């Protein structure tokens, strides 16, 4: 029997597999394909104070081994999220992590104050890394002092675990991760999408209406691994790794590089049952390698001998 459980602050995950925000709706959409109670947790679609329609079409495009998106945080708004979406998760035996974003530093605190009493929310993930919005998002997450201010504001509102989702579009992710840690974050998750773009050479139009979007999928996995490694070296709080994870072996790489847990994103679109298969794969890997607790491999990267 392998112990797959890991801890993110005060939160215990029964296994290290979470579904990433924006790729799993509000939690129940994939019910026909998998039992979400088997997951370590789900991170719901970013919620903002007011409903958002999102960006103009086209919002998605495929690139080699990757996907560009510019959805623009389309969501139902906090009111509907509380009244209509969270109740659907009442009887689900998994952790629910609410992902939040604001247009201003104060809005982040305000939305968390609205959510934080809800018994179904087990943790908060702060989105300071969306590349597809005018305000907040990436603009905040590339600045250590603004990231710190957002995290402090949220920290003052809630005793629930606070996870800060970081962007890879920075010079040194360790600086931003430390700013989050020093401001009271319980964990960081990295990475959000990598800024990307594509052009239709026949029409000379950009593939996305907003020109630049965020790249996800296996194309960004090596970038994500490097950022997770750097973040894990920079902070003592847990790092949650994501970016192009398509199977259990990818997840193991992230754990070894320093991630305490992982999130699947683009995978969910392609194989809705993928996250659950990934958990089974992690268990098999542990059995094969005589690992009794998966937590033992976190950050277990070995040095290569000097030749």
């Amino acid at each position, binding site marked *: 029997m392998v112990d797959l459980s890991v801890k993110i602050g005060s939160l215990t995950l029964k296994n290290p597999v979470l579904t990433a925000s*924006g790729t799993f709706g509000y939690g129940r959409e994939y019910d026909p394909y998998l039992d979400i109670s088997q997951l370590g947790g789900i991170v719901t679609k970013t919620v903002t104070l007011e409903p958002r329609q999102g960006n103009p*079409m086209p919002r*998605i495009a*495929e690139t080699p081994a990757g996907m560009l*998106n510019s959805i623009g945080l389309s969501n139902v708004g906090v009111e509907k999220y509380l009244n209509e979406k969270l109740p659907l998760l009442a009887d689900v035996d998994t952790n629910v992590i609410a992902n939040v974003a604001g247009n201003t530093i104060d809005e982040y605190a305000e939305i968390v104050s609205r959510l934080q009493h809800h018994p179904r929310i087990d943790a908060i993930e702060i989105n300071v890394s969306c590349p597809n919005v005018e305000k907040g998002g990436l603009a905040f997450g590339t600045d250590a002092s603004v990231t710190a201010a957002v995290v402090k504001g949220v920290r003052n509102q809630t005793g629930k675990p606070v996870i800060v989702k970081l962007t890879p579009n920075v010079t040194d992710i360790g600086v931003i991760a430390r700013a989050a840690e020093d401001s009271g974050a319980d964990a960081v998750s990295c990475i959000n999408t990598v800024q990307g773009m594509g052009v239709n050479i026949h029409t000379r139009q950009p593939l996305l209406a907003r020109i630049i979007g965020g790249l996800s999928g296996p194309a960004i996995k090596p970038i994500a691994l490097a950022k997770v490694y750097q973040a894990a070296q920079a902070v003592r709080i847990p790092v949650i790794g994501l970016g192009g994870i398509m199977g259990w072996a990818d997840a193991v790489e992230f754990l070894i590089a320093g991630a305490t847990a992982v999130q699947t994103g683009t995978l969910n679109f392609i194989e809705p049952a993928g996250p659950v298969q990934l958990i089974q794969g992690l268990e098999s890997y542990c059995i094969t390698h005589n690992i009794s607790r998966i937590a033992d491999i976190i950050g277990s990267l070995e040095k290569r001998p000097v030749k």
Partner: protein
Amino acid sequence: MQTSDCKITAQDAITESVFRIRLSAPGISKLCSPGQFVHMRVSTGLDPLLRRPFSIHRAHESAGEIELLYRVVGSGTATLRDLKPGDVVNLMGPLGNGFDLEKPVDHAVVVAGGMGGAPVFYLIDALLKRNKRVTLLWGTRDGREIFDEADFEARGVALKIATEDASKGHNGLVTDLLKTFLAQHAGSAGLGGYVCGPEPMIRAVQDIVRSTDFLWQASLEEQMACGVGVCLGCAVKLKTGEIQMVCKDGPVFDIREIAFNG
């Protein structure tokens, strides 16, 4: 619902770039209805990465098979073209909401354009089964993409063809045929409209049918990632201002409710 590996049982070329593929998909063939789609993973590799949506061209419940009609436009469809009978692809589906066939329509006018016309074969099969009178207005750029004309006519479908290369029927657009049809049937009762085609055609039809007083159902095409309403990539704006997803709320919409470009 599960994703399922489905074996290709046949694949034929209609032209050098348009193909009709037949798949063993017993579960889908039983559950599906006209206008719904399947979401296909053409290979287990990482490129092409995403699933591709294909509207169901025909369903054969007793044989447990479905047919799809597609044009090779990118790496996914190129991969699909190169697959042979016996090869396997993975399907999710049936997905989306198909056409409402229960509306009290006596005479169905079906407008099909290009590859968007793929689902009208299945739609017409279902309409004929319900003893509806069917007129099919079918337009393509390349006349070789018009096929099975004799079969439609043998089954009593009034078929009108428009081709832009002047190789078959009227030399022009399917919307020309629609204008003529509406002029001939002005004031007729019991009509119902069904529209499948590319967005410019659907926009044009929306404009033409404004003065008619019956329902027009249009099937929209859009790029999709998830196919189930999660990624929010295939948004369509309605005239009410509401945003809906082509994959989950559609792909069939009341043509009058669609707000093209706001």
